């Protein structure tokens, strides 16, 4: 526990140093920031957007926005939390368009599955995305921030600009939703395996 905390502190300190370097004009130092957070930000985008290619594009744009605005960053929140805020706004923008365009894939698949009771057509990532689809945007964000960064409720609250108790309540609600859906997901998955075999 202590070791992990220490290593987290060291990592935070390293990030702080890099951020200061970039803020003072060393743009190249930002590559270290990208290296440190790219996987997490990518996964966050991937599960919010549901598409690998878009997640890659989005992650790049988020890092660019971070770099463009880094002079405005101050340590009222951690740098990662600040990045997740940018990520949220960017993904929301994309999702609004997605709802009107790219969502046809998931909706189309869903239509097939529910209308025809052929749930077997689902595959595993559909199962995770389908579970996430049961959640509203705030719930998704909470689940993803808990999952990817293992943030505390307090940290999530500061990123989402909500009260910690609200985050906790929302988390309880999303857990219930997930558990309700899980059985269905399990069935889908088992069928999918049979199909594949």
């Amino acid at each position, binding site marked *: 526990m202590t070791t992990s905390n220490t290593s987290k502190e060291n990592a935070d300190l390293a990030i702080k140093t890099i951020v200061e370097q970039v803020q003072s004009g060393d743009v190249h130092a930002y590559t270290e920031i*990208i290296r440190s957070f790219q996987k997490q930000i990518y996964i966050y985008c991937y599960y919010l957007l549901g598409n690998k290619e878009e997640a890659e594009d989005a992650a790049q744009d988020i890092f660019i926005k971070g770099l463009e605005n880094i002079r405005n960053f101050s340590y009222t929140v951690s740098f990662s939390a600040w990045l997740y805020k940018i990520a949220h706004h960017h993904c929301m923008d994309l999702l609004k368009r997605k709802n009107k365009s790219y969502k046809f894939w998931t909706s189309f698949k869903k239509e097939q599955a529910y209308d025809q009771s052929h749930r077997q057509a689902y595959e595993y990532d559909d199962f995770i995305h389908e579970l996430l689809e049961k959640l509203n945007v705030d719930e998704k964000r909470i689940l993803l921030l808990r999952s990817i960064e293992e943030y505390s409720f307090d940290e999530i609250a500061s990123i989402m600009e909500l009260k910690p108790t609200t985050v906790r309540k929302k988390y309880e609600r999303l857990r219930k939703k997930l558990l309700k859906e899980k059985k269905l997901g399990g069935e889908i998955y088992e069928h999918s395996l049979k199909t594949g075999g």
Partner: protein
Amino acid sequence: MNTRLKQEDKEVDQLEKIIRETPVEVDLVNRTMRKYESSRDTKPSEKSRTRQKLHHRIMIITTSAAMIFSLLIIANLISPTPVTIKTTATKKDEPISSSVFKSSERDIGLHAADEKGLSTKLNTSITHEGFTLSVTEVVYDGTRVAIGLKRHQKEGENSKESLSEQISKVEFSLNGEPLNYPNIISGVFMQPIKDKDAEVIEITDRKNHGGKPFPKQFNLTLSTTIAGISEPFIIDIPVRDIGNHINLQPKISRKYKNNHFTIEQVILTPITTSITIRKALLDKSTSVDSRGGINIDVFDDQGNKLKLIHGNGSRETNEGTSDLIEDLRLHPFETLPKSITIKPYIYLYDAYPNGALQLDENGDRIIQYIQELEITIPINSKE
């Protein structure tokens, strides 16, 4: 009860772990920095190797776009005739700002439409409550109607929201008849644009999904609502098919296990490659239907793969059948190919209990082509 709760906790923990440990190998460093450099084109002093590379790439894209058109014209296709038609909407003559299509980075077809003068420039604006919405341009290539939109906000107002976020409702009428699409995802698409003051809205017909085909020339009325403004923005847009396409109806089918896969139609235009596929089951009585998991890649004879723009699908339920019909719209080919190859594929997953999507060392999904369903269609340039 307690045990049950613990079990439930464990299940959610497990899901979180699956998300956290999603196997990805991403390396966005160079791509991001290149993109950043290229976005700073107002600062020429910041020249870097990466930026030069990007310029080089842009030149290649432009050259390739020029090649498409040269080839299409060589192939005796109808040459593009841009039309300018006066619109009936309330006009506010403002200088036309830069092309929205041109700034469409993700869609090389629209970019090419602007570069080659295939799109019709419009300058139709409607103003309500100090908010002006303009249609800057339109193009219809027989597969999709793309409309460029731009906003001009009240003086001094600079909304944080993009135009896309502000648009809350989109409806269309064709020659005065409302196009009552079942839902917004069934033929109306919004294309991401980097400029937050701009947007591309696209609409396709639903001729393969129970609707009528669009005529060659028509008046399209866009009615859209902007958040916070009660009155809708209604704009008439004259649309004419640029007629620059190759239309093939190969109806070639392949079979694999219980799947019957058919290429119904292929349309090649300077802006779009449109492919209509039909996915049927050989044994319709089966309870196992894995058709939804079959996707396609499209290649030219040189192995160049096309990027998907958008698509829509429906289930055709006639006399007990339930074929899946999908219209996919992809980027145009860089040069007119001798043939195109459609390669159906599925994604690969790890075995139970992890079952995660398999990714390669670049973090890309691992796919498996189904050779038995592969179809190559020769393109006769004299068509």
